């Protein structure tokens, strides 16, 4: 190949290399959320109530235990799962139960979900149940929101702040 042609071909190939890198480093654009959508983000970490109350051990039960383990009360460690229900404008949007962490299921239940919703005005109702001994829900909050496109509405749970948080 004549030298000039070879240099020209090299230039074209270098330009192709640059174009591939330049293009792939920004393009094509990835659409993460539609322009008319907002995002409901549910994230919480909350330990449910202990599943069962302590009970007194009978004399027979205590006698069967080694001397150093004869605690009069038997207190189970397992916690309740946390159930979450989200209602948007009167219709159920989301409903799920989260198991406690840990081998003995004695840790906090942690949950995270991304829920895209249409932007605009909505009434949100969030219900939590953190005690399996209670039927229905133990915590609830309702809020009217005006979600702009792209806005993130966060649903959290903090006992010290009164339970369900919507912001």
């Amino acid at each position, binding site marked *: 190949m004549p030298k000039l042609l070879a240099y020209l*071909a090299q230039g074209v190939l270098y330009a192709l*290399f640059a174009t591939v890198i330049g293009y792939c480093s920004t393009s094509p*654009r*990835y659409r*993460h959320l539609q322009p008319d959508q907002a995002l409901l983000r549910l994230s919480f970490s909350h330990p449910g109530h202990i599943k069962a109350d302590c009970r007194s051990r009978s004399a027979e039960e205590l006698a069967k235990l080694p001397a150093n383990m004869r605690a009069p009360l038997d207190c189970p460690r397992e916690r309740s799962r946390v159930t979450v229900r989200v209602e948007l404008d009167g219709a159920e949007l989301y409903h799920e139960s989260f198991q406690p962490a840990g081998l003995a299921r004695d840790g906090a239940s*942690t949950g995270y979900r*991304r829920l895209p919703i249409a932007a605009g005005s909505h009434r949100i109702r969030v219900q939590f149940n953190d005690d399996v001994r209670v039927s229905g829900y133990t915590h609830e909050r309702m809020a009217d929101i005006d979600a702009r496109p792209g*806005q993130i509405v966060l649903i959290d749970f903090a006992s010290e702040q009164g339970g369900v948080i919507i912001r």
Partner: protein
Amino acid sequence: MAPAFHAIERGLDRCFGVAANPLRQLGAVAYWLFWAAIASGVYVYAYYETGVAASYASVERLSSSPRALSGLMRSLHRYASDGLVLTVALHVLREFTYGRYKGFRWFTWTTGVPLVALALVSGIVGYWLVWDMLAQFVSIAAAEALGALPGLGDTLVRNFIAPEAVTDRFFSLLAFVHIGVSLLLLLGMWIHVQRVSRARVKPDAALGWGLLATLIALALVWPAASQAEADLTRAPFALALDWLYLFPFPLADVMPPALLWAGACAATLALCALPWLTRTHRAPAAVVHPDECNGCGQCEADCPYGAVIVTPEQPGGPPRAQVIAALCAGCGICVGACPSATPFRSTPMLGSGIELPQLPVNALRTRLEHALGGANGSVVVLVGCERGARVGALADPAVTAMSLPCIGMLPPAFIDYALKRGAAGVMIAGCAAGDCEFRLGGEWLAARVAGGRQPRVRLAHDRRHRLRIVETGPSDAAALMQELTAFRAVLRRPTTSFQPGGARA
């Protein structure tokens, strides 16, 4: 697919020349781009500030003059890193296509697999450091994906649920991880080439500087820019994604993260296990004959895979070659390097200091003598490589064809020996430059013929025109035939001038 790769390589040979062909040195190009990313990264880090607001602001300050040195360095850091990933992908594809992952190459292949993951992790964490909307997307998507792993759960992503959840110290941690993973990558790259002698870790100078100039030009024309500052109360709509690094995250949006992890783990394990899943016949390792070995060390110097060491067998004893069978490719380059592999020796049973058990030099000499018996200067000896054009197909009463595992196995003294025993000429058909299956066979043979490497080809001036070296590929049989015909025509002339050995079939 291998023929397509060969064709592209041949095309690039014509543009860049064999020495500067980027496809023939993808590993070295990857090293070069890594160093370019490191050098520009050090500059960027000097101006980078760790903190929620400070991170974005400091990167924006760097980019405020995109064509000044600071902006240029930031862009170069991104594009060199992108080039690295692209080059590594091509490197893996090429080696896979040529089947260069089996047998003695298992170590180099297997140690290369984690490097892909390390390069990706380093780049992904690098994108977090900018703390723009892209960083926000990447950090949340990564935390969501990591949450699918056992033991992590949905706790990790809570670090990004609200602006107050992200702290300044987080960016110090990120910088530490970004640098730490890059250093791990460098360590991995060092390990990756440990079983390759004279590993090429520096590309041809013209190519290296050409690539760097290209990336600088790209940085000037298309400066890297941040997106809007991260805001955890807003979600990004459309993102200018770096697909070379961040391609897993859109995938995580369309499939469960657990499935993505399972796929990634399965692909990694499959790549690591590939050398054993596709095991093929392995050539027997070279063997040393201690009585013939003088411990000169030439075999150790020429072995492309560090499979030969020269060391005393006993403390205080004379040095002798030893073959590490696990590393030996069975190419025979060590035989070509051994000064005792000369057929001029008068011993009836010729032995070499180091030999291939399946093709001893005595058998080569016997075969040559048998073919040349009473030749009276009419027979051409054609020596070829098993990986190149098939020389056996060209054998006829006037052409004796000998095929070797690698052309570097040919002991140079055989050339002079054949001519002295009555061969009309010797034609050596090695693989095209850069195509040698065992990396250095063609290079060493050319150096020995040119007199630049021991053992040298010793030819009287009036015999030099009777040696011809051609470069051929597996699909070059017709071209080799033409070369052979032309060579025989030259040999038939009563007198002729010296033909420099370097034709290309």
